[in-house]
């Protein structure tokens, strides 16, 4: 005859496990070739090429130095590389291979993976920005920061919003391959039209109106305008904040994984 086991009292779980998961994820993400290529190498190489491709007095940049224009714009390219390519592939791969189920079965709170992915996304974005500026500065110099607080807000809000969009893609697609395909499909038009490609003044009206619909365009302008002093970027920051709220759906979905 069996007797029931007494109710087991446990210590609260969560924060310790989440901390270990964040630390592990930070380590792992730096071993991913896709991350190293897309987040660190791609923005550096492209900015070094494109920032030197225009004459200093090129009319397409509203009187701005093209090199400074691109250096300040390319922080958004790093943000997009993390949010639209790295995060979706990472989340989808974990879902596909049952890594998340293993974490859940081991007692990691369901929100801990979302927290870890978000933290890794933002940390990686900041690291990518530092690397980008470290390579661009000796070649083109760094433009003077006119409104550093607004620039920082643009980077942070943009990084969180884009990471949320990445989480949403990673949660919805069936496989890592699909996430990579959709992520690249979202990344390259955003990159070309939203700040990393030709200046908006040379785009036709139709293409420019498409560019204005892209989240990355507003992320770029919310960083570049206060940096170069061509505006506060407030309206764009508000739009990005709107995307952040929408991307909360991604975070919420990730928490429920």
């Amino acid at each position: 005859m069996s007797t029931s086991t007494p109710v087991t009292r446990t210590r609260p779980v969560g924060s310790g496990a989440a901390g270990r998961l964040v630390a592990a994820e930070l380590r792992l993400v730096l071993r991913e070739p896709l991350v190293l290529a897309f987040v660190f190498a791609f923005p550096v190489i492209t900015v070094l090429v494109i920032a030197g491709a225009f004459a200093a007095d090129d009319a397409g940049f509203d009187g701005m130095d093209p090199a400074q224009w691109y250096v300040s714009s390319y922080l958004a390219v790093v943000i997009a590389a993390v949010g639209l390519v790295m995060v979706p592939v990472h989340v989808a791969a974990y879902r596909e291979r049952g890594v998340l189920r293993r974490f859940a079965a081991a007692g990691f709170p369901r929100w801990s993976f979302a927290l870890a992915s978000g933290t890794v996304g933002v940390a990686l974005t900041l690291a990518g920005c530092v690397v980008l500026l470290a390579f661009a500065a000796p070649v083109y110099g760094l433009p003077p920061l006119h409104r550093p607080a607004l620039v920082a807000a643009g980077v942070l809000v943009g990084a969180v919003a884009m990471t949320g969009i990445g989480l949403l893609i990673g949660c919805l697609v069936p496989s890592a391959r699909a996430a990579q395909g959709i992520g690249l499909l979202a990344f390259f038009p955003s990159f070309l039209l939203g700040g990393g490609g030709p200046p908006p003044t040379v785009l036709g009206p139709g293409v420019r109106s498409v560019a204005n619909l892209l989240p990355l365009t507003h992320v770029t302008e919310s960083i570049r305008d206060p940096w170069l002093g061509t505006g506060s970027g407030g309206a764009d920051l508000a739009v990005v904040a709107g995307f952040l709220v929408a991307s909360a759906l991604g975070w919420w979905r990730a928490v429920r994984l």
Partner: protein
Amino acid sequence: MTALVEVRGLRKAYGGRLVVDGVDLDVDEGEIVGLLGANGAGKTTTVECLQGLRRADGGTVRVLGLDPAVDGTALRTLVGSQQQDSALPDRLRVGEAVQLFRRPGSPRPDGLLAAFGLDGKRRTAFSALSGGQRQRLFLVLALLNRPRLVVLDELTQGLDPAARRDVWAAVRALRDAGSTVLLVTHFMDEAEALCDRVVVLRDGRVIDAGTPRELVDRNAPWATVRFSWPADRPWPRQPGVHEVRRDGGALEVHGDRGMVAYVCAELVRQGRVPEDLVVVMPDLEAALVGLLSEEVAA
């Protein structure tokens, strides 16, 4: 004995399709209980409900005194778990995996890693481990925090025979150390080799339960005796014999277990004790194949 797992009338449906239909299950402290059944029998869904990874649609579940639907996260910190079809990140090294899954205050993992032959693999990435090494790592992770209950779901799926034997030895070591194990498998030889008790599921329902010996006795109470015998020499009628088959110079006698004694006595009486005498007793697989066939017929 103390029941670590108590399940009564567990029900779970996916999109209107009932996959677990009124399952009762008890696991007492210190025993290895096998949840056995074909693919799709509802085994994995049952253990996922026990761990709070899925919410049951009906019935009551208590694991270590906790309700998984309410205290799932807390419960999962007390249960060591090996999940079917799950993995670790490819580039996570063995030592890092241990660091990630080990909670503060848990014993140092050195002994476990050594016991499971992974001490020299601490810097090896998960993707570089063989199938057997991966399963042994999952066992180490399941045991890291001294769980009172270990749930192992299809632990040896996809392993070669040698790796399966390694993992079986590891599970036996768990039993020797006093752990309580709920083993989910569709390999009947695995259940027979490892389990103290077996619960057989089919279409989400328990169709039989007991020790492997009890299941065999209940569902396959027969034996076969095979030996050389002259083709022109008749074999007498004997109690408990259901069928006598001749195959050239060999005779095969099939019937109740007790007939083995009569057959052997007859061989001695006739002074013809053959050197190739073989007595075949049914194993769990033979017993349950019959049981499942009866269910299909019903």
